[in-house]
């Protein structure tokens, strides 16, 4: 299942880092960060709890780029 979230990030390199971090999160099948539109499109694994996964995604993103925000 795919879902789009608004994000807030300052630089394109940081956006790439967030994308990497989100992809590595458990429960995430794939993820694309669109820096230009400030969006994150997350493809969840079958049967995963979206909310819990997104919390982890946010935590992981904050680890690589402290200034970023993911609006869940």
């Amino acid at each position, binding site marked *: 299942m795919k879902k789009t979230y608004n994000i807030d990030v*300052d*630089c394109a*390199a940081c956006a*790439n*880092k967030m994308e990497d971090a989100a992809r590595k999160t458990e429960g995430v099948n794939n993820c694309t960060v669109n820096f*230009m*539109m400030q*969006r994150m*499109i997350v493809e969840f694994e079958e049967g995963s709890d979206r909310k819990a996964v997104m919390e982890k995604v946010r935590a992981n993103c904050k680890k*690589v780029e402290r200034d970023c925000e993911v609006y869940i």
Partner: protein
Amino acid sequence: MNRKQRIMLIRIIISALMMVILSFIPAKGALRFILYMIAYLVVGYDILLKAGRGIANGQVFDECFLMALATAGAIALAIYEKSGDYTEAIAVMLFYQIGELFQSYAVGKSRKNITELMDIRPDYANVEKDGKLEKVDPDDVEIGSVIVVQPGEKVPIDGVVIEGYSTLNTSALTGESLPREVHEGEEIISGSINMTGLLRVRTEKEFGESTVSKILDLVENASSRKSRSEDFISKFARVYTPAVCIAALLLALLPPVINLLSGVSAMWEVWVYRALTFLVISCPCALVISIPLSFFAGIGGASNAGILVKGSNYLETLSKTKIVVFDKTGTLTEGVFEVNGIHHNIYENEKLIEFAALAESSSSHPISKSLQRAYGKEIDRNRVKDVEEISGNGIMAKVDGLPVACGNDKLMCRLGLDPVPCHSIGTIIHVAVDGRYAGHIVISDVLKSHSAEAVKALKNIGMKKIVMLTGDSKKVAESVARTLGVDEVYSELLPADKVSKVETLIEEKAKGESLAFVGDGINDAPVLGRADIGIAMGAMGSDAAIEASDVVLMDDDPMKIVKAIKISRKCMGIVYQNIVFAIGVKLICLLLGALGIANMWLAIFADVGVMIIAVLNAIRALFVKNL
């Protein structure tokens, strides 16, 4: 400028002022160090903090860490050498921050400009309640409700006009600047702007299913489909920074060690300084920012011209197009019948059409309709008498008292006349007036006015082959192909044959080239899907076409294909320029740095300068009006 940016600007100004003032204060020793450190921390404390956090999280090759290391290293060198020259380290930090600020400002600004350009989203719909207009969220309007669109407002939802007359500006949707007139009973499409009159509209779709929502969805998601160039850049950035850091480490250690071993002085300061210069150049920001920005601007510019590209990857493929395959009906031709020629006439063209149109005025056959359209004036039925339809032959009638016969060869033979055969392709209507043969009228599916021009323009911009596929008869297909200058034509094809034909063409083409198929999306969705690039034309309101294609032309002008290819090429040109320019300048700086020709000043200027130029160049992709 947002709050973050303003604070940054203030910090930069304070630090810069301090630097100027400090250069006039002859402070020495520890005091000098402390004063300069204040300037350094004012502008760079966040970088140092981030660097520390990066290390804690295992992000060693973080750009903040690199900047921190480079500047701290330069300060350490200044202390070690007792030169007291801290200016360089602070200047590097200062310029780095100026660059970051510019980037965040410029990107934010252009992001806003581009999204505004694409912003056709209506904010509200007017619903009439108890004689008063009420503004509601378009999402809440149900199918079949009546909405009111006032002059100057956007049509929020697709529907049918039930009352009113107005002109609509559809340029945000189609790029077509000519306004469109609408009357009662006509369908109107959301996203267009009502210019003159008040319209009452019965909605036919929900907001989410309306044209404007579909287009917005498509354009907003377009830049999420990343192209190969973008993937290349993010991979490159991942390798580049660590590689430069390792090179810096080697540069700091190897030459001095070799010097020591060969008995010369090690010159540690020189090589450590050069290594620190490397670190300044190691940030890949110019590349990482300018490539997606170029694509974003390209897609934005294209959508403003009525060309919707569904993703950066399609823009890239489109730019490599070498073979264009057209569907005939509805793409190169109008798909409606029109009078296309009048030959061997003994009256003037207008007069012959007038006779024919009047004689056929009571018929609703498509051919009669096309004659009446060609006549163009109000038909006075009183001038027509004694209409007699001879099935399979034509019509006989008295027009202004003169006997007129319109029909095929058989009708002429029946009247004992000798019809002149026609070489033109299409349906031939022979006309006899007052017992004499008066000429014939050719009716056929007309070519679009820009088709021939488009084919020629496509060849001019380097297309290797223009192919036409059609289900129409061989004779018609070949005549159309000849007129337009199409290279290859395949006729009498069923929809499935079109797919296999396109597959053969794809197999035949050279590597690195792509094949574009252009159709109207009505019955060629499978072919649109099969081609490297499927271009749907005149797709306003046709959901199937929007779904199946990769590029959607909002109106049906074939010249737009040329424009789309030009836009994609310009955009890709900018992408390659930025890649080559940014990587090139960095490599040169690395080389000069290693040789000791470039110092840190030059390195930071190169880094920030490249970024600024690359960003400005990327924005150029937005300007596509004159292509």
